[in-house]
């Protein structure tokens, strides 16, 4: 009994040290993350002048957001971005990661190669891609198509292509960094497993299927939800490529929020929309957690 008490007291002292160490971080977090977060929720229920609250608005801001003439287009597009990013962008870094890990010669060259687009400034890449996608005979892609006698295309100006094409540029830019995470994960797999499999006569495909893929499933799941969260908040790519056009074909929820906040100076409405976005993300993450938890139980 006495011994237990002593143990507990010791724990407290140690705890105190731990908390003291953490305190600066906690304060910074509270100041830069939690406080703005709570403030944002508060603002969304208020009327504002600049950032100052002038009164209580109830759900008015939320109703104004949902009734906005551009809201439905932005809402649908944002899901379209997420959908296309999973179709186009999810498997690319996994394949890249596996291929580069299996490569014996020139591994670093490829590693640098896939990561290279990532170190370029985002705006610069969008500008470069804009020249590729230029409609008419002066666009780079159209010049290339011209060599094969194919008619010039309008690329981003075709509303059906706008989102998938933006996602392709996004994947081109960011797949490398995700591939690095997969590569790190793959290099953590014990070489014994591969050796044993090779001795047993397993082919490359079999090794990938039975050793590599099961080992990276865990990280792949995390990357999936992270990708959904980040693509759902897509902002500057559609803004710079086509400013949300043509005719709202690429406008996203975050773009709409940016317009409320920085074009109209309507902070309350922008806050309401950002709360809506985070609610959608919480629900999506919840569904995902539940779905994967079931699998884990099985």
């Amino acid at each position, binding site marked *: 009994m006495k011994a237990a008490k002593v143990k507990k007291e010791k724990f407290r002292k140690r*705890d105190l040290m731990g*908390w003291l160490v953490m305190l600066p971080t*906690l*304060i910074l977090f*509270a*100041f830069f993350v*939690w*406080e703005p977060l*709570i*403030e944002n929720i508060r603002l969304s229920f208020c009327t504002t*002048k*600049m*950032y*100052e609250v002038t009164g209580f608005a109830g759900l008015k801001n939320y109703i*104004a957001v949902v*009734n906005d*003439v551009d809201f439905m287009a932005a809402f649908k597009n944002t899901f379209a971005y997420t959908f296309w990013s999973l179709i186009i962008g999810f498997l690319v870094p996994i394949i890249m990661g596996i291929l580069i890990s299996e490569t014996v010669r020139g591994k670093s060259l490829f590693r640098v190669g896939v990561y290279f687009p990532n170190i370029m400034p985002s705006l610069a890449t969008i500008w470069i891609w*804009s020249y590729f996608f*230029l*409609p*008419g*005979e*002066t*666009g780079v892609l159209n010049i290339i198509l011209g060599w094969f006698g194919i008619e010039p295309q*309008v690329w*981003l*100006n*075709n*509303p059906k292509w706008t989102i998938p094409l933006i996602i392709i540029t996004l994947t081109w830019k960011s797949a490398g960094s995700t591939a690095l995470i997969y590569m790190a994960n793959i290099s953590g797999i014990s070489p014994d497993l591969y050796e044993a499999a090779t001795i047993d006569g397993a082919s490359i495909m079999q090794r990938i299927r039975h050793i590599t893929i099961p080992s990276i499933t865990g990280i792949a799941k995390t990357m999936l939800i992270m990708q959904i969260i980040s693509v759902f908040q897509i902002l500057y790519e559609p803004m710079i490529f*086509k*400013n949300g*056009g*043509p*005719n*709202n074909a690429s406008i996203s929820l975050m773009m709409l929020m*940016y317009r409320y906040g*920085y*074009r*109209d*100076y309507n*902070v309350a409405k922008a806050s309401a929309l950002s709360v809506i976005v985070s609610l959608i993300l919480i629900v999506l993450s919840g569904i995902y957690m539940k779905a994967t938890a079931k699998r884990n139980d099985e």
Partner: protein
Amino acid sequence: MKKKLISLLLCTVMAAAMLTGCGDETTSNSSSSANDTSSEASAESSVETDESTEEADSTEEAVTITLGIWPEDTLTEDIAVHEGYVATMAELHPNVTCVPAYYKYSTDTFMPMVESGNCPTIFESWFTEPQKLISQGAIADITDELEARGWLDAMNPSIRELLSDDNGRVYGIPRDGYALGLMLNVELFEEAGLVDEDGYPLYPKTWDELAETAKTIKEKTGFAGLCLLAKDNSGGWHFSNIAWCFGATLCTENADGTFTANLASDEAIAAMEYVKSLKWEYDVLTADPLNEDWGSGFTQLGTGGAAMYIGANDAVQQPTQVNGLALDKFAMCPIPEGPGGQYSLYGGTPYFFSKDATSAEINAALDYLEIMGKAPVATEAAVAGMKADAENKVAQGVPVLQRFPCWIAQDVLDAEAAVVEEYGNVDPKMFESYFEATASDGNLRLEEPGETQDMYAELTKVLQEVIINENADVAALMQQANDNYQAILDDKYPAE
């Protein structure tokens, strides 16, 4: 126990954070109430300054103003001109310290800057902004200061209305006015053989002529005849001028304070059909109008990518100084006439003042404007300021042109005309038709009332659709835009 401790600590931290938030508010409240008192006191102090403006009184309290109108770092010659203004300022108003604080107004930086108390005492903005900034309480009421100086009645009445709130209080003054016209790249006109025997461009006088002219240019030179904007709201902005010429009025204010959108009228639809024909019938636009905005339009014009572009006299440095078009290859003509007449959209660049500025600071900033020659006074210093500005323009290869009368003080207009005469660096014939048309009665038209930026956004969406879709149903699209815009108007200005 551990959990309890964590939650306790978290709560404390959160509470502390909230408290800091509240603390901010109280301080800002107190500062705004301090402002109130200062503006109450302003009546007296402005009378005082009024009496003492003539003789520079060194016993006046020291005032520091931050100048958001300072040129950006790279424009060293412009900075030298401003340093000259500061020297004059030090002579005439030794109590005032001027601090350069270059600020180019943009909607995404403005609010955080004001909120953090870093707004320059004086800065330039756009004519689309005053109502928004006034309703947000982001700029200073300068009615009393202007009244004491007698500037209120010198302001062009329609511009004064734009810069006032519902109670007639004035929040800004105009730097200069502009009117949209058609800018021409004379080089492309020459190449296409569209010049008269004296070498002046044969500019289009109607919209039909514009389409034909543009077609000739495209056929003869391979470059676009016209640069049309369809990337952002500037597309809708230009289009509203085209629509007026087709006889459309896009929005009307009703007696009860509500607004009626009128985007689906036959005239507006005809104007949009015309724009559509520029792409699908005449094919005279740049490669991707959906990628063209205000700035890229000047690049197209200045670098010979397009022969014509809708632009205004306050932006003549864009094709020339910025994009390298030779001064003798640059001309301006009026916006072409349409079936509904000929109009030029009229606006300007306003100066605004920080909401935190005291009356003395505002007065000091107004003094600075006087020295720059941008105020409705033709004092010696003001004329010197105008001359310094013109001299700098000549050195930079920017056309020296007359301003639009945003002030109606005759002596200022005369002084300005004399300076333009003295420093003129362009052939006036290249701009004659433009200034003639804009001087004619009823030609200048202010932007549509209502939520103009939202209207531009809706119109830009239609522009994008008619440019990418040959089979676009213009009437249906304009009806949709009209419905959307009406919904926005009804939401903002509900019927009582």
